[in-house]
């Protein structure tokens, strides 16, 4: 996706605003919700990008070379849509905190 025009920039001079104005872009650390996490079988993955396209949190990056997928664990909620939708069954959900998940 394209980068928005107003991405991080220098803080301008401040002014007072009265009333309900939301002006600080923040994020909830939704990665803490996870009870399971996706694990990719690199041999099966064909880098088609279906997982990334349907990931609600946009936390899957598909790489052209090397390991095919990387995950943003700060925000992955562990919903499992990626594994459910993978046309090659290259993703499996494994228990968060298991030995496999924390090598």
């Amino acid at each position, binding site marked *: 996706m*394209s980068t928005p025009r107003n991405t991080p920039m220098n803080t301008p001079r401040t002014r007072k605003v009265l009333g309900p104005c939301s002006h600080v872009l923040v994020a909830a650390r939704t990665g803490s919700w996870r009870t399971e996490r996706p694990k990719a079988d690199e041999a099966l993955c064909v880098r088609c990008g279906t997982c990334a396209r349907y990931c609600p949190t946009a936390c899957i990056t598909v790489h052209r070379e090397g390991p095919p997928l990387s995950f943003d664990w700060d925000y992955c909620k562990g919903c499992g849509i990626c594994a459910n939708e993978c046309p090659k069954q290259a993703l499996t959900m494994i228990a968060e905190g298991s030995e496999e998940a924390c090598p």
Partner: protein
Amino acid sequence: MLTYKVQPKGAVSPGMNTCQGCMIDVIFRNALDVLGPDTVLVIPPGCAAQFSGCGPEASVTVPGIQGNLENSAAIATGIARGFRHQGNEHTHVVVIAGDGGTVDIGLQSLSGAMERNENILYICYDNEAYMNTGVQGSSSTPLAASTTTTPAGKPVNSKDLIQIVMAHHVPYAATASVANIPDLRRKVEKARDIRGCRVLHVMSPCPTGWGYPPAKTVEVAREAINSGAWVLLEYEEGKIRLGKKPSDLGHVEKYFALQKRFRNADEEDMRRAGAHIAERYAWLEKMAAL
């Protein structure tokens, strides 16, 4: 000026408090990606109000306003007219509202905006009940679905929003689904480049309210399309164009079986639901053939 505490993903905060398995995020990210930064959002209370922010905290990188539940199309009208008066015809004024704020309490203001052909894009994400307040039935809740206000299953069919929209002769309307993101993007792109009142009705299944595992949101949405419970179509210049004919038209057994909200549906309910779906589809086919 917006201060960035995190790097957004597209135009949306990376961490949203939408439920696990909810795909409203995907609708927002893709719509805003297609529309670009020259966009103003109107969001009513509801699940999508997560994207309005909270207190000083914002969740999107475009400007916007959270209105009341029933006046999104009216506020968007004001914004579009205010811009036009100032010679700004380029900024996209976009509503993203749920089914409650659209087909129920917000229908009047949407109807007014459609009749006046206001230059706005109205996107309704439809999760078929008042999810944010705890899964109360809406007029978009389908026959036999159990909600907290239809505990024994809804006794009547849902309101047909897209046909109401088409009856207003808007320049462009379409249905879409989170089961087909490329199709959704294409329709947002098309809507973006048309002037006047454009309406997109997007099915967005709700794991919390529909009762299925979060991993199955896309699967459930896909099965809705296969059974004809959700019909993909486009309406442009008075013509209806239907998508591919549903593979399993009128057969809701598989679709119902995926979701706990239909667990009390008996054979008669499924027959009635299936018959309604088939009749509606036949009617749409006739309209599309005109």
